[in-house]
């Protein structure tokens, strides 16, 4: 009977939830990183007006709790006639939030690139956009990678907030089961273990990527 609960109830439910968690994390992390790179670059090198807009975006999404952002997207937007699926609202919220944080890591890395790099591109006849795409951003990304990876790991964990706006992922599945069987300790320990494994795998992948992108003079060898 003990075994049955784990094998027949808990593991299948958590695996189902894990799949949904993946569906949240993969687009949120990848699109969020792209948003971060774009916004971070605009905030550093963009037209002054665009810089202000980017700063405003980052201030708003770093300055308010993620739960509130999700509530506004899911429960608030219908007041304006915009109805989002729970999944869409969750992914959109995560992208906007993680993008704001990523832009800050990217901005810091861009500011650390020596001014001479830009001068050299100009002297060779690069346009500003060409210089950013081929020279400045590739260098900055390598410097930003540890911070950006940290944000992705954080995202894996805050993806659990999606169940609050009724998208049932890992934490949501577990909570339903825990309430039904009144077995909070086992269920939440199991969920914790699932997250720990996911984060460990992500960390491993990020370290691999750092190694793959390693170039003498950037980071440690």
């Amino acid at each position: 009977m003990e075994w049955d609960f784990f094998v027949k109830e808990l593991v299948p439910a958590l695996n189902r939830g894990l799949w949904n968690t993946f569906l949240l994390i993969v687009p949120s992390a990848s699109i969020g990183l792209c948003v971060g790179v774009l916004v971070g670059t605009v905030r550093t090198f963009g037209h002054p007006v665009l810089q202000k807009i980017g700063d405003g975006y980052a201030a708003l999404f770093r300055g308010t709790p993620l739960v509130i952002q999700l509530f506004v997207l899911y429960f608030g937007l219908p007041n304006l006639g915009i109805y989002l699926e729970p999944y869409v609202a969750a992914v959109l919220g995560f992208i906007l939030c993680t993008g704001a944080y990523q832009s800050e890591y990217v901005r810091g890395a861009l500011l650390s690139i020596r001014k001479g790099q830009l001068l050299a591109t100009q002297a060779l006849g690069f346009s500003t956009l060409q210089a950013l795409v081929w020279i400045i951003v590739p260098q900055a990304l390598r410097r930003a990678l540890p911070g950006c990876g940290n944000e992705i790991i954080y995202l894996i964990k805050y993806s659990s907030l999606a169940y609050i706006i009724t998208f049932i992922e890992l934490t949501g599945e577990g909570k339903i089961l825990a309430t039904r069987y009144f077995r909070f300790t086992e269920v939440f320990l199991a969920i914790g273990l699932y997250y720990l494994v996911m984060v460990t795998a992500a960390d491993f992948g990020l370290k691999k990527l750092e190694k793959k992108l390693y170039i003498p003079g950037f980071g440690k060898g």
Partner: protein
Amino acid sequence: MINPEPRPVLQVKNISKKLGGKQILQGVSFELFKGELKVLIGPSGGGKSTLLQCINFLIPPDEGKISLKGQEIHIHRKRDLYAYRQKVGMIFQDFNLFDHLNAVDNVSIALRKVKKMTRSAARERAMVELERVGIGDKAELYPAQLSGGQKQRVSIARALAMDPEVMLLDEPTSALDPELIGEVLTVIRNLAQDGMTMIMATHQIGFIRALADEILFMQEGRIIEQGSPFDLLMPGRNSRTQAFCSKLQELSEEPEV
């Protein structure tokens, strides 16, 4: 070596520039003819570096005109400006190699992205230029793995690959250890002998004596003396340049070139 044409390759007219409330350049003019090597010399803060950066608009001049082969350059016509900069090679004091690219990619990236050459053609050309400055065997190394002299030679190869009409050299050896200066000066000497048109800020007096067609002595944003090394550096000439150079020579014995 001087082979004057009726029209200068580069014409700099009345360049003025104010930076941070200070007048750095005050109406500087000179002309550079094909195959000429002119040298900028003078105390630091005199405006040499600002002048060179004004010539390719890395620092936009407040006033004055710059023309390449009779064609005036307007900074607001972006397309023309980018095309002009491709024809004006720039060598920086601290090299400014692209830190994330190895030597051959440092040379080929502008060929690919700016001149739109294919990857293989760009690489081939880059290798030719690296061989020309004597570091073909270092093609796969990254800037962090090169010595200062090697880095500066890569940066010269990078400029040469663009087929420049003129080269601007901003104290190319002043960030180098003394034993590495010779290898870079040798490359520049070879360029001069191949007929490259150049203006160079430097304090390497032996090099200036041997190779400069004209010395421009700059102080407080003006060219206050100009003439051939023979005119300005002959003992007993009593020129400002002469006084400055003998002081330099007292301070350091430089390697022979």
